[in-house]
């Protein structure tokens, strides 16, 4: 039985409702049938009562005059042999004289004249006993003996106060049954018709309701492993509880996606912050002895009495130390508040500065800088960001490819400078995207892998945001920097 309850709603709703419709039709049908049977019997008794009164009155004079033939004609008159038999069609009429013998009957062969009622069968024995019961009998007497296929109705035949005998009408119950069966078939036909109309409607309605539910259940089942997609908007566009459930699900999915994105961002930021702290620590630890070493080497170089081999070695050491200093300086990004604001000339400078690289790789450069005369952003840092991103893009773009710059106030946020650099180079892989801003993460041959690290450090220290994504066949870097005190309250674009 449990399997029935475990069925999918797709089947359960139509099955249950079909079952309920069926049961309803059956119960209502059965009630109507029972009622129809009772009504039919009632109709038979009423009809019989009317007929019995008429016959009893008409037949009374024939009893008085012993006019058998006239009586026969009277009792024979309601008998139809040829027309279709109906339940209200009397089967036989019998006139019993006072001595309980048959005075006349509509069917003399089966119920012959003069025969004693008791000899006609068990039904008549019972009937005779009831007819001759002491006073108090309620007329008409309706008798439906058990195990009998007949129903009897009897009335006394009287002339003034004298009782002349009894009139007995007999109805065949076997005639009831075909009529009743007819009624059942009719009822069944109507029931099936109703079912034929209701079941498809019910299946359609059930599946309309079940399909979104099934869809929802499947998506909910996936939820632990991944964030599922929202439901298609036209799946169930109504506002009942089911519709509300789907809307709530959609809201939940969106919230989950935001949460997942935020978590990713946080993990990334925390990792980068940890790396920054680590590198800064290492850089400081290196810088102090390094400064001493450089001073020593410089002092040594000033002495004129040195062996030329030593001098050569000193210069080798000096170049090595300088390389260490440069690398450590690059790792240790230090932003200092600078008074000068970014202006149009800075952008022109950058444009000029990258031209040799652009020309060398035959890059088409798109330049769109909605730049007022001056923006309250630190000029040297922004210049470094721009140069890093643009050179990076020029290197990443295909030979003869396309690189574009868009710079301006961020849409919908006046206090935010937005820089978008795009190139048509190879897409970044998932793994690259995760480790993009870490130091020495470059996959490009010849790169030292510190350009984006430095850029990231500068942007972060300026309380801005940087993000990279693959978009429409291009790779896009977006930087948002706050202008002034207010921060750019945006998620990574």
């Amino acid at each position, binding site marked *: 039985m449990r399997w029935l309850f475990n069925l999918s709603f797709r089947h359960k709703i139509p099955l249950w409702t079909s079952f309920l419709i069926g049961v309803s039709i059956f119960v209502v049908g059965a009630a109507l049938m029972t009622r129809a049977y009772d009504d039919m019997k009632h109709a038979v008794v009423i009809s019989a009562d009317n007929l019995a009164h008429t016959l009893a009155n008409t037949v009374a004079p024939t009893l008085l*005059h012993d*006019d*058998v*033939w006239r009586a*026969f004609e009277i009792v024979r008159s309601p008998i139809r042999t040829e027309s279709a038999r109906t339940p209200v069609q009397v089967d036989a009429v019998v006139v019993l004289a006072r001595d309980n013998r048959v005075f006349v009957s509509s*069917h003399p062969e089966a119920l012959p004249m003069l025969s004693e009622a008791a000899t006609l069968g068990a039904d008549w024995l019972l009937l005779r006993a009831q007819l001759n019961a002491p006073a108090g009998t309620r007329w008409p007497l309706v008798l439906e003996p058990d195990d009998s296929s007949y129903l009897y109705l009897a009335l006394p035949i009287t002339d003034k106060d004298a009782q002349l005998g009894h009139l007995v009408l007999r109805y065949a119950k076997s005639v009831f049954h075909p009529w009743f069966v007819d009624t059942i078939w009719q009822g069944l036909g109507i029931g099936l018709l109703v079912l034929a109309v209701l079941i498809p409607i019910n299946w359609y309605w059930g599946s309309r309701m079940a399909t979104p539910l099934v869809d929802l259940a499947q998506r909910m089942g996936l939820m632990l492993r991944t964030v599922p997609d929202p439901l298609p908007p036209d799946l169930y566009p109504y506002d009942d509880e089911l519709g509300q459930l789907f809307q709530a699900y959609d809201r939940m999915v969106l919230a989950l996606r935001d949460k997942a994105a935020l978590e990713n961002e946080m993990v990334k930021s925390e990792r980068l912050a940890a790396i920054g702290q680590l590198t800064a620590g290492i850089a400081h630890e290196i810088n102090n002895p390094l400064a001493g070493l450089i001073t020593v080497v410089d002092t040594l170089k000033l002495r004129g009495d040195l062996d030329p081999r030593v001098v050569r070695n000193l210069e080798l050491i000096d170049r090595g130390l300088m390389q260490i200093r440069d690398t450590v300086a690059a790792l240790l990004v230090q932003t200092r508040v600078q008074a000068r604001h970014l202006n149009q000339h800075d952008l022109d400078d950058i444009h000029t500065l990258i031209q040799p690289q652009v020309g060398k790789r035959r890059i088409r450069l798109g330049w769109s800088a909605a730049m007022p005369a001056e923006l309250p952003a630190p000029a040297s840092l922004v210049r470094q960001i721009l140069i890093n991103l643009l050179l990076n893009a020029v290197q990443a773009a295909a030979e003869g490819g396309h690189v574009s710059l868009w710079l301006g106030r961020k849409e919908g946020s006046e206090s935010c400078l937005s820089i978008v650099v795009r190139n048509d180079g190879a897409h970044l892989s998932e793994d690259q995207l995760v480790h993009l801003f870490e130091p020495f993460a470059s996959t490009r041959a010849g790169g030292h892998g510190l350009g984006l690290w430095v850029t990231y450090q500068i942007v972060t220290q300026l309380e801005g945001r940087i993000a990279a994504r693959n978009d429409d066949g291009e790779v896009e870097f977006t930087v948002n920097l706050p202008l002034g005190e207010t921060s750019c309250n945006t998620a990574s674009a």
Partner: protein
Amino acid sequence: MSKDFVNPLPNRNRRRWLIDSSCLAAAGLIGLTRKSQAAASKIRIGMTPAFLHDQHSLLGEWRAFMAASLRRPVEFVQRDSYRETMDLLRLEKLEFAWICDYPFLHLKDSVRLLAVPLYQGRPHYRSYLIVRKDDTRTRSMTDLAGSVFAYADPYSNTGYLSPRYEIRQAGRDPANFFGKTFFTWSHRKVVEAVASGLAQGGAVDSYIWDTLAHVEPALSARTRVVWRSPEYGFPPFVAHRSVTNADFHQMQRHLLDTSRSDAGRRLLGLLYLDGFTTGTPALYDGVARMMRAFGET
């Protein structure tokens, strides 16, 4: 006085009383009815269950034929029992009537024999004792002792007098020979009573049973003739003695001439008769003999 007479039928006393009283009534009414008859000049003919008198279209045709031939209006007066027609004759409400031979003898003082139909070429018929077709046991009247028996009419020869005479001839008393008897007031209904099983036996006019075998074979086929009586004079047409000689002869001429015209022969064909003859009262001596046996005059 016979036993039968002492133990009369329910109607017996009433019949006597009616005959007596109607004589008085007739005397009183005679003047009035004669006058009205002369004024209307209409002929009233009583039709009885002596033939299949419920064939209404046949009766209508016959009446029209008769009126055209006599050039006088004709009225057929149908009654369901012989007694009623006899009463109408006595009261001079009828000029003519087609009655059974037994009533003719009862009324012989007040009516004249007008004509006798010819059945199968002769003015004779019989009484048939019939039982149900499936009753193969009964071979004679005596086999029906104690049964339910249907008589046609207390004034019918073949449907009452003759079978009772047969019982009497067998040495039994017809009054208690049967378990139960009843009258159907028509020969045709005797056949129905026997066919339906209401009665085990019945006495019926041979002319009517034979005619039914043609007209309604399904009904007569459900019965079987067990015994045929001797021949009796066929139920006659009679005229009341008050009818003028001219009217009497005109009517007699008309009846005798029926078989001479095509229309008449067609009608006779429908009635399963061959024509009419004048006949003599001697035809009915056999009935008179039976009546005497029962103490009737």
